[in-house]
């Protein structure tokens, strides 16, 4: 996992490309990408956890579930729009070892599961959100709990890439 022999050829080519070199040598690109990545995570995870809590019933006297969803979902999307390009930038700087990094691999699988879960939730329950609090579907609640678990684990794993 750590030795250069396990780095995929495409990842080595990426990190040695003009992009990889440019990112590593620029004074501002890498720190900027780092900062945008963190802000994006704050927006994404913050809005998702807030919506999940609302769907579990917290704050139901303050805001209807459908309104919470309409307000928070675009914030999550903005978070993703910040996270993806900044994450690709961070990855490109150090693509060889990162591509072989188990922690990053698990994180990306969790991200895929989280997105799939969110899309399925929309498809299944979006139209029922106006009456969500009267009849909460069991599967929907399971999806909400899975969402909280997944999206809390993702930044933990992301941070641990530097330490494991």
């Amino acid at each position, binding site marked *: 996992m750590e030795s*250069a022999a396990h780095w995929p*050829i495409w990842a*080595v*080519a990426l990190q*040695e490309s003009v992009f990889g070199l440019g990112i*590593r040598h620029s004074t501002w690109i890498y*720190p900027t990408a780092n900062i945008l990545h963190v802000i994006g995570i704050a927006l994404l995870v913050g809005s998702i956890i807030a919506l999940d809590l609302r769907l579990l019933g917290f704050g139901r006297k303050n805001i209807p579930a459908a309104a919470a969803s309409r307000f928070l979902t675009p914030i999550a999307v903005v978070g993703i729009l910040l996270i993806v390009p900044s994450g690709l930038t961070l990855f490109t700087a150090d693509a*060889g070892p990162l591509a072989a990094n188990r922690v990053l691999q698990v994180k990306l699988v969790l991200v895929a599961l989280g997105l799939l879960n969110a899309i399925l939730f929309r498809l299944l329950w979006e139209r029922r959100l106006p009456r969500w609090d009267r009849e909460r579907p069991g599967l929907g609640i399971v999806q909400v709990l899975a969402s909280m678990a997944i999206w809390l684990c993702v930044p933990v794993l992301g941070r641990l890439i530097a*330490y494991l």
Partner: protein
Amino acid sequence: MRKILSVTAALALVAGGAAAHHGWGSYDASKVVTLEGPVIESRYEFPHGEIVLEGEGKKWQVVLAPPSRLQARGVVREDIEVGKRVKAEGYPSTVRDNEMRAERLTIAGRVFEMR
């Protein structure tokens, strides 16, 4: 075949630099390694700088702070160029026996803290 060769060459070039990226936790703070001599290899790059120095009969990968912090502390690219005489004090890696994380650099009588 040429592709394999060039990939191998690329690997050899970058192996030292990027292989060092496994965070800042795995260094043995109970042992201090002091290396002094001419810089053999030098990378003034993100995510962190790195130089190669010889000492205790082997070549060490010396992990430094990110270039932005090096700059802020007064270490410019030219200070750690190949051939420049640098003293590095730091902690050895618990994972790789030829890697250390510098806590302090001394260059031409000037002392720079990495943390």
